[in-house]
C-alpha cells in the first residue's frame, strides 16, 4: 500500500477557542482536521474534569494531518491563537494513505 510522509499535529486547547483555532488553520491552508473530546487533564493551571460542567468549558483536542511542507504555516497560525492561552501543541511524523486528500 502506497503511503506518503506527512505530519500529525495535535493541539489541546480550551473549548471556547476551538472555532478561532480552526478558522486560523483554514486560513493557513489546512484542508482538514478532526476534533476529539477531552475528559479532563492537568497542567500548569491545575487539574480539571469535564464531569457535570454546565458551561462551554473544558478542552478539546484538534488533530491535523498535513503535508510536511505546510507545517511551518500551520504552526504559525496555531501559535497566534494558542499563544496567550492554556493548551499544548505537539507534532509527530506519520505516513498517510491517499495523499491526494491532503
Amino acid at each position, binding site marked *: 500500500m502506497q503511503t506518503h510522509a506527512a505530519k500529525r499535529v495535535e493541539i489541546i486547547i*480550551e473549548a*471556547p*477557542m476551538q*472555532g*478561532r483555532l480552526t478558522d486560523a488553520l483554514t486560513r493557513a491552508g489546512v484542508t482538514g482536521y478532526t476534533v476529539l473530546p477531552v475528559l479532563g487533564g492537568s497542567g500548569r*493551571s*491545575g*487539574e*480539571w*474534569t*469535564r*464531569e*457535570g*460542567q*454546565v*458551561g*462551554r*468549558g473544558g478542552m478539546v483536542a484538534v488533530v491535523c494531518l498535513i503535508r510536511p511542507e505546510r507545517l511551518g504555516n500551520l504552526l504559525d497560525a496555531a501559535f497566534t491563537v494558542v499563544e*496567550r*492561552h*492554556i493548551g499544548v501543541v505537539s507534532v509527530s511524523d506519520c505516513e498517510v494513505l491517499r495523499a491526494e486528500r491532503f
Partner: protein
Amino acid sequence: MQDILSLAADNLLSPMILCFALGLFAALARSELTVPEAAAKALSIYLLFAIGFKGGVAVADHGVDGGLISALLAGVMLSFALPFVAFGLLRGLTGLSVTDAAAVAAHYGSISIVTFVTAASVLTSQGIASEGYMVAVAAAMEAPAIISALWLVSRAGSGAQRMDADLWREILLNGSIVLLVGSFVIGMVTGQDGMVRIESFIVSPFQGVLCLFLLDMGLVAGRGLRASRGVLTAGALVFGVVMPLVGALAGLAAGLLLGLSTGGVALMMVLAASASYIAVPAAMRVALPEANPSIYLTLSLGVTFPFNLTLGIPAYVAVAQAVTGG
C-alpha cells in the same frame, strides 16, 4: 427578624438546598458521584426553557406595561455599573492584579440564572407574585458587565482586550440568552393556550428537576473548591459574601425606583446579588486569557453561589417583603 430566621430555616431544609449540600459534601469527600455533562446540560436547557416560557405566559396574561422597558434598562445599567463597585472592593480587599480583579468583577455584574430560578421557585412556593418579565431582565443583565470589565483592563493598559465581532456574537447569542429570550417570546406568543399544552412538563416536575440540577451544582462547586484550595485569600472570601449584599442593595434600590411588586423587588435583588459562572467565564477565557480562571470560578461558584442559595435568597425575600410591605 423572627420571620427571616424561620424563612431561612424553611429554605435551608428544602429538598433543593439539601440536594446542593449533598453534592457539595460528596465532592468534598471525593465520592465518585457525578452527573454526566450531557445530563447537566439537558437539565439546564429544561430549566431555562421552563422559566423563560412561564415568564412569557405571565406577561401575556397581564399585558406588557411600560414596566418591561424600564426594568430592562435598569437591569442593563446595574450590570454595567456593578463591576466598577466590585473592582473597587477587590482592589481594596485583595491583592489581585488588575486583570484578575476585572475578570472577577465581570462575573458579579452579570447574573446566575440558577440562583434566579431557585429564588423564583421559593417565591412560587410562598405564593408571592412577581413580574413575568423579570426573566427578560435576567437575560439582559448577562452581557453588559463584560464590557465594563474589559474597559477596566484597557484603561489600566494591562493586556489588550480582544473584543472582535466573533466575541460579540458569542456573548450576545450565548446559549442561555437565546434560550431564555426565545422561550420567553414563545410563552408570550402562545400564552395560556400554549401553557395548557406543556404545563405538565414545565410546571409540575420543575422543582424536582431543580433538585437534581442543584445536586450537580453542588458537585461542581465542591470539586472546584477542592481543586483550588489556597487560591483564595481571606480578603477574597470576604468579597465573596460582601459583594452579593452590596449588589442586593443596589437591586433593592432599583426595584423600588421601578415600583416593582414584592416578588419583583426580591428577584431584582437576587439578580444583582448573583454572579455568573457560565456565560462570563467562557467570555473571559477568550477576551482575558491571562486572568486566572480558578479565582473567578471559585469565588462565584464556590463562595457566592452557595451563600446566595442558602442565606441570601431568604434574606432578600424577607427584606423585599418588609420594604414593600408585601
